[in-house]
């Protein structure tokens, strides 16, 4: 009993620390990559290749003055960045980072918790994330914040349906919600990857997830050319950074879930499972950055039309085709 609690706590600490480091270094990764795409160098002064830049940034932000705007609702204003930051971290709990290993005769699963509602748990946390934006927009009592919060929540809920529907085809084949189980079904051979059975679902899922995490080309809520900074206009220093890092946390979580659902998670030959897992996650992060460096921002009406009139019907068609193929 005590030993299993100890193992649980150790696992949580390792995953949590790793995740925080990944968040910090995704900011560096993105700035460097976007810089290369734009024929610049990006941050390269602090430490070798700019590797200490995230730490320097963190210290800079910690020494900024924190304040609450006078017309804001103080409690909700403080609560909003926390709500934006915490759910993507909690979602990591159901993503397996490696195969079951044996330490001193005990079988240890390399994931924090094997909930049997895995994917639904991730989606439920995603739906809580909307509150961070709504609360930030409303509590700031600033016009730009309110418009940004409103837009982003409408965008997020529109794409949540696509996100939820896109995995249904996969669930029909996998017959389980548990992400650990889905990964196990895909291990063994590359051909077992659900990407090959559900390619359309993968693209729909990834596009929706990108819209959910408010990334370019879907970053309408913070469209700086029209809304200043959207829902986090009024936030200073580290409090703004919580939203910013929350977005990166969301990106990493989405990459982990995508890799696990469609690309076999930790499974792969020769290299240890965790290395495969990280390679896949970084690959998806790279796609995120690549898309950001390549595509311009949507207009809001295009965004909503795309979500409802393209993604939504396509997900239904995907379910129908999957259903027909499985029966016939």
């Amino acid at each position, binding site marked *: 009993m005590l030993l299993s609690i100890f193992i649980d706590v150790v696992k949580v600490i390792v995953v949590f620390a790793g995740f925080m480091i990944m968040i910090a270094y995704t900011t560096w990764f993105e700035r460097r990559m976007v810089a290369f795409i734009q024929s610049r160098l990006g941050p390269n002064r602090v430490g070798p290749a700019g590797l200490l830049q995230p730490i320097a940034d963190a210290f800079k932000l910690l020494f900024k003055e924190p304040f609450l705007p006078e017309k804001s609702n103080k409690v909700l204003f403080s609560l909003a960045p926390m709500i934006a930051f915490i759910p993507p971290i909690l979602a990591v709990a159901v993503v397996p980072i490696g195969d079951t290993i044996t330490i001193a005769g005990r079988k240890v699963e390399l994931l924090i918790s094997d909930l*049997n509602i895995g994917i*639904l748990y991730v*989606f*439920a946390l995603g*739906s809580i994330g909307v*509150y961070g934006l*709504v609360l930030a927009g*409303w509590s700031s009592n600033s016009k730009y914040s309110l418009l940004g919060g409103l837009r982003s929540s409408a965008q997020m*809920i529109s794409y949540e349906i696509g996100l939820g529907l896109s995995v249904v085809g996969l669930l029909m084949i996998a017959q389980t919600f548990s992400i650990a189980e889905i990964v196990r079904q895909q291990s063994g051979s590359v051909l077992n990857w659900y990407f090959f059975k559900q390619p359309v679902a993968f693209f729909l899922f990834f596009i929706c997830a990108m819209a959910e995490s408010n990334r370019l080309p879907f970053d309408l809520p913070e469209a700086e050319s029209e809304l200043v900074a959207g829902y986090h206009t009024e936030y200073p220093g580290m409090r703004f950074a919580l939203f910013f890092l929350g977005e990166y946390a969301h990106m990493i979580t989405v990459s982990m879930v995508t890799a696990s659902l469609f690309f076999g998670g930790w499974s792969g030959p020769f290299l240890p499972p965790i290395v495969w897992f990280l390679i896949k996650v970084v690959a998806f992060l790279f796609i995120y950055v690549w898309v950001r460096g390549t595509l311009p921002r949507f207009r809001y009406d295009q965004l909503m039309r795309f979500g409802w009139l393209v993604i939504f019907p396509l997900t239904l068609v995907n379910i129908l085709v999957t259903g027909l193929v499985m029966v016939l």
Partner: protein
Amino acid sequence: MSMLIFYILAIVAVVSALMVVTLRNVFHSALFLVLTLFSVAGIYVLLEAEFLAAVQVLIYVGAITILMIFAIMLTYQITSKSIRQVNEQVIPAVIIVLVFFVLSLVTLIKTSWPVSNKSLPGNNTFEIGRQLLSTYVIPFEVVSIVLLIALIGAIIISRQDGPSRPGQEDR
């Protein structure tokens, strides 16, 4: 242990439900409603109905309360005013509430609550799906009609621009 957690969740649910009806700022009421719904989801988890708990969060917290918040933001300056909690019908309301309270109390005490000694199925999501699509298939299909009516009704109400503007259909 689980009794303790249940009581904590129940107290949170009841207290925040009370806040929902007593707070004078509707926006804050809506947020306390979120807290109530969360504690109910917690109770579902405690009863090992994880699917129901996830759905509770997805639908009630993630969708219906967001809808309410939009409705609140839609209403002109409703959040900056404090709203009267009572109207002229306070006395009949109190009487009805008391009668209802007594009735439910009597029902609660009189009913014998049978406890099934069957064990839970290992993964009750499968069981929910199986029941939904075999025993309860008619209610299941009716749900879609109810949802359709709700959708159409909401759109008709919200698009009513008054009879003076007949040419509104093209917009």
